[in-house]
Every structure is written in structure tokens, then in C-alpha cells.
């Protein structure tokens, strides 16, 4: 029933957008891919499609949504038979109203804006390494998605720095495919455009059952003179805390981004997690954990990307090798043809 209502609402939105202005053409973008992983000898394969719909309505309104449709083909243990399961997830479906530069109001389902990974780097065609950081569940309780309202905006924007904020409230939802936890949180950051350095911090208060506070900090630096991206996050919750630090170097100095070597990107990431309190259902490792990853991305023409990485995970329960490989395709086209 929820899906049917959503389909009808989407159709109405698309029609409305089309009737308003020919130039405000709704778009369907997103990514598709095939991801493979071997963790301690156990294989996992995932064909994924993640469509993103954006429907501008008038000058100030926008409806946007992203789904994640994946088939998980996995083994329970090395050498055992494969089982398959389909996971459809509605990651966000929100209506945005641009009231002013300092205020955009979003209502609906959204990605919880804690630190920067969840709402900025989680898409399969954006992330540099296939696996998400260990600390991702901290601050994004309960499942990374919120149902409610979010405010965001740019408080100050000058040539030397930009100050921005995000604040949200999510209600508890047990509706199938729209599950979310009751929580509230905020994020504030400063971006220095001249050196492309960004610093920020986040806070979340979980407002159900066990009430708890999580907080974090993040950093991103992309110097203009070198094609390197340095990103990192720290997150803390009563259950545990940890950090990750990632660097990515694109070999574009060797003949430009479209040269044979310029399409190659090397990625490295280190991360550590420290368990502070035993807990189940928090999606965090049950023990301390360290992990080192190193991988390669190769950007082929037509938005196709190949990636492969090797990681070594250390934990008191046992150390394992993690091999990831995949191919992703990023697509973007207007929802209907014709017009200018």
C-alpha cells in the first residue's frame, strides 16, 4: 500500500514538474554495479541498482529520492552453498523547499547527516572503497535513515570561507521499508574554498529506549595543486569510538585525466574501532578492530569504473583478509524526451 501511494505521488510530481516548465526536466540518475567480496574465504556477490530521481517543481521546490535494490548472493562459510536474498531499500525520498540560501527545509525520508560519509559518500558510484567505514553506524542510529524534517543552509559564504549547518528530527517508524529511529541531531562545518579544506562536527541524540549521545568530527582536504583527496572522520558513542583516514591519488598528472594512466586512482585507508561497552544491535563490531585497505579505481569512458582492493582486518576474534572487486556504472538522463 505504501509503495502504491508513493508511485502515485511520484507520477503526480513528474506530471506537475513537466507542466510547469520545459526546462525543469526531471532526471533519473544513479548507479548500477556488480560488487564482489571475499572475506576470510567466504564469498559475497551483489548486483546493485541505485536509481536517483530528482523532480524540480517551480523555482524553489525539489523532490528527490534514492533507492538501493540489491541481490545478495552469499556463503555462510568458506566452501558452503550460496544463498540469495533480495534487499530493496528506500534510502531517501524528500521534498525540499529552498526558502533562502541560509535555509532549505526538507521533509520526508532522508539520509542522517552525521559526519560526512553517510549522506555524501555512501553511493556506490562515489565511494572510493567498496566497504563502508567500521564506525559508520555511530551517529546514524538506527539504520542511517530518518523520517521527519531537516533544515540546512549556508550561514556565511565569502571567498575565503563558508559556514554551513544541518539540523534534523526523525520520528520512530516501523512501517515496512520506511523504518527509522527516533533521534535528533545537528552538524556544522566550515569550508575554505581557496584551499578546499573542510572541517566539521556532528551530534546525534537517540531518543528511544536507550537514550544516548553520539558525536563526531570530520576533515576533508583536496589541494588544487595535487590530485589527492584526504578525508577522515572520528566518531564517539557510549558503545564505542573510532576513526578512519583515507587518501586517494589520481594519476592525472600523467597525461591528464583521460589518459591511460590518468584514469587510474590509488586509494588507501586506515581505521580503528575501540569497543567501550558490550552491546548488540548497534551494528558495530563486538570487539576492538583495526583495518588497513589499499585499492585501485580505474575510470573507463562512459562513466564506468572498475575497482579492486585488498584489506587486512585485525580483531581478537581473528584476523582476516578482505578482497573487494567491482564494476560500477553511473547514469544520468532526462525522465522524458523532447523540449529544449
Amino acid at each position: 500500500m505504501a509503495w502504491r501511494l508513493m508511485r502515485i505521488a511520484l507520477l503526480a510530481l513528474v506530471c506537475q514538474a513537466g507542466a510547469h516548465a520545459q526546462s525543469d526536466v526531471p532526471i533519473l540518475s544513479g548507479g548500477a554495479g556488480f560488487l564482489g567480496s571475499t572475506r576470510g574465504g567466504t564469498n559475497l556477490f551483489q548486483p546493485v541498482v541505485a536509481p536517483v530521481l530528482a523532480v524540480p517543481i517551480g523555482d524553489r521546490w525539489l523532490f528527490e529520492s534514492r533507492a538501493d535494490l540489491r541481490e545478495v548472493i552469499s556463503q555462510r562459510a568458506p566452501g558452503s552453498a550460496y544463498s540469495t536474498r533480495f534487499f530493496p531499500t528506500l534510502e531517501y525520498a524528500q521534498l525540499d523547499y529552498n526558502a533562502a540560501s541560509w535555509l532549505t527545509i526538507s521533509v520526508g525520508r532522508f539520509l542522517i547527516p552525521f559526519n560526512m560519509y553517510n549522506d555524501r559518500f555512501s553511493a556506490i558510484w562515489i565511494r572510493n572503497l567498496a566497504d563502508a567505514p567500521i564506525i559508520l553506524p555511530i551517529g546514524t542510529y538506527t539504520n542511517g535513515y530518518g523520517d521527519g524534517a531537516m533544515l540546512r543552509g549556508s550561514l556565511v559564504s565569502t571567498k575565503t570561507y563558508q559556514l554551513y549547518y544541518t539540523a534534523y528530527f526523525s520520528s520512530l517508524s516501523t512501517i515496512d521499508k520506511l523504518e527509522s529511529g527516533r533521534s535528533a541531531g545537528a552538524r556544522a562545518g566550515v569550508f575554505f574554498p581557496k584551499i578546499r579544506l573542510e572541517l566539521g562536527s556532528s551530534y546525534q541524540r537517540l531518543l528511544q529506549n536507550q537514550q544516548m549521545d553520539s558525536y563526531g568530527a570530520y576533515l576533508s582536504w583536496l589541494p588544487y595543486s595535487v590530485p589527492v583527496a584526504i578525508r577522515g572522520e572520528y566518531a564517539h558513542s557510549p558503545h564505542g569510538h573510532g576513526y578512519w583516514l583515507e587518501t586517494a591519488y589520481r594519476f592525472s598528472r600523467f597525461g591528464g585525466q583521460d589518459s591511460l594512466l590518468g584514469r587510474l586512482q590509488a586509494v588507501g585507508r586506515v581505521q580503528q574501532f575501540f569497543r567501550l561497552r558490550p552491546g548488540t544491535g548497534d551494528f558495530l563490531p563486538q570487539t576492538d578492530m583495526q583495518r588497513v585497505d589499499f585499492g585501485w579505481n580505474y575510470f573507463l569512458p562512459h562513466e564506468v569504473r572498475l575497482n579492486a582492493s585488498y584489506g587486512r582486518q585485525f580483531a581478537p576474534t581473528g584476523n582476516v583478509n578482505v578482497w573487494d572487486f567491482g564494476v560500477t556504472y553511473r547514469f544520468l538522463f532526462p525522465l522524458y524526451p523532447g523540449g529544449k
Partner: protein
Amino acid sequence: MMKTLLAFAGLSACLCFCLFAAAQSRSRPAQRKAASSSSHVTGEAGRGEEVFRTNCSRCHNAPQELSPRVVRAVVRQMRVRAILTEKDEQALLKFLAP
């Protein structure tokens, strides 16, 4: 032991990248200035190019192709996601769909 060595190697690599990047930024301001002044894009579109270079790359690589028909919707969505100001949005539109 192995764990410590790998963690140390990883952190050292990150640190080296940071130091290398910092050294490069200091030693190449003249080149950067020359590159920006050699651009033929001026005015609002020039500012749009700056917004594109500065903000879009914070999260993702630039799309290899961008049809003029989809630009408005893409920019509108990025205004929300990248928290762009109204001025930035207009400049970006001028640059991507002149």
C-alpha cells in the same frame, strides 16, 4: 607485530600524502595563478566554473558528459546536497548551460 607494522605503514602513507600535498601547494602558486588567468571563461560563467571546481569535487568526480537538458535539475539537487547559495546556483547554471 604485523598489525602494528601495517597500521604504521598506512598512517605513514597518509602522512606522506599530506606533506607532499602541502609542499606542492606552497611551491606552485604561480602555476595555479597562470592556469586560472588562462581560462577563457569570464564573468558569471567564470564564477560558475570556480564554484564547480571548488564545490562539486568535494564529493565526486565531474560527470564526463552533462546534457544541457538535465543541468537545471542536477544543479537544483546539488544546491540542496552541497549547500550552495542562490548566487552559486545561478553562476553554476551559467557555466554548465550558457
